[in-house]
């Protein structure tokens, strides 16, 4: 007889606790759930009705996707800080050997897994006046499985036709932490790189 009574008592306490905490939980959810999302779940998401699909031969006016104004953005000061960090980085200077470059784009690097992501760095694309070719040792980072922290590494390879570079600047250290050729560039691997299992995004 004692066990059923204990179980009932536990259920009652659980129910009372749930009711008592309801306003607290609601308040916390209000804090963490912006409107309309990401606090929303799939079930709460609104429906978007698609247009009729086009038929073969049908002429469709060219569409220019409009970028929403929402989402993380870099401030002018952050862009300037990233550009200054790149200009001051000895690794960048050594890699480019004094060659000129221009900044083509800069996008935010944010902390993952948060409803209010904060900008922790910048991903800056630079265009080189003279393409890189030859052996390189490039700084890189590999994120942990939570995609938050990272470890630094060096990539050894031979680069071909690298006229654009993606340069990651971590504002927490005000430092360049990664350089990667992008676009049509190719890198042939040299010995000495530590390999990890592929994680499959």
């Amino acid at each position, binding site marked *: 007889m004692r066990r059923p009574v204990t179980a009932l008592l536990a259920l009652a306490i659980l129910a009372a606790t749930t009711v008592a905490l309801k306003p607290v939980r609601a308040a916390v959810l209000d804090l963490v759930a912006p409107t309309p999302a990401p606090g929303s779940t799939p079930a709460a998401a609104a429906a978007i009705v698609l247009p009729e699909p086009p038929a073969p031969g049908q002429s469709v006016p060219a569409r220019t996707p409009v970028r929403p104004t929402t989402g993380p953005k870099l401030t002018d000061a952050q862009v300037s800080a990233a550009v200054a960090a790149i200009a001051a980085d000895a690794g960048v200077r050594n890699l480019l050997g004094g060659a000129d470059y221009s900044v083509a784009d800069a996008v935010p690097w944010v902390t993952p897994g948060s409803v209010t992501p904060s900008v922790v760095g910048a991903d800056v694309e630079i265009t080189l006046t003279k393409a890189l070719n030859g052996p390189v040792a490039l700084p890189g980072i590999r994120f942990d499985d939570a995609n938050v922290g990272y470890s630094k590494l060096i990539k050894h390879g031979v680069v071909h036709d690298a006229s654009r570079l993606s340069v990651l600047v971590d504002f927490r250290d005000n430092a360049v932490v990664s350089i990667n050729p992008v676009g049509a560039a190719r890198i042939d691997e040299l010995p000495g790189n530590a390999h990890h299992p*592929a994680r499959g995004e």
Partner: protein
Amino acid sequence: MMGRHRWTSFRARLPIVVSAIACVGSLVLAGAAGSATTDSLYQIDTGYGDFFYNYDFTTDSGAGWNTVDWGMSVIFYNNAEIEKVKGEAPSYWAGASVASPMWAYMWNNGTWGPGYDQDSGKKTDSPSCLGSTRHFRIYAPPTTDRFYNQSYGYYVVASTHYDHHELCDDWFDDSEGTEHDLANEVASQPGNAVWHDYANLSNYQWYDEGNHHWRQNGYATYVWVS
């Protein structure tokens, strides 16, 4: 268009409601390992009561804003089917042995669902330390490997991205480039046609979230499959 039936039943939403309540109720805000987040998660209504979500997910339970992988970016329609579309993109030759599965949540009204479909997709190469590999996953109700309604005919949906340096400093980006590369390859087959960035799926994201570098413009490309 005649008699188009636009609704989504509560029944269709129920499984995901339960898992969402469990997830939100626990106040766990971080996603699964490798997951990314979005503030633009929507049901996509293709008519006649059909829907799919505008992202795929890293889980087949508790799908939500913090367990997304990539935005849906291509719709193959008229006479599409999963293996047929994969077969019409032969440069994407590497399959499940080198690609991880993800899940999409969908409902083909009156035929199947709601529920998840899983796909590992196809890649243009196997993973390497300093190489890059374009990658798409393609989804439809698993019993038929294709949706059907009177507007779109037989159709399937795909997400796209680009894998880089998977064995070393891995990062993932360029949904747009792979969207166009895949769509153009399938559209180059006889009788097929393509309309780039035809419909707004409202999954625009353009920033780095850890190694998940969002580069998707929110619009889906349509490919007519003959």
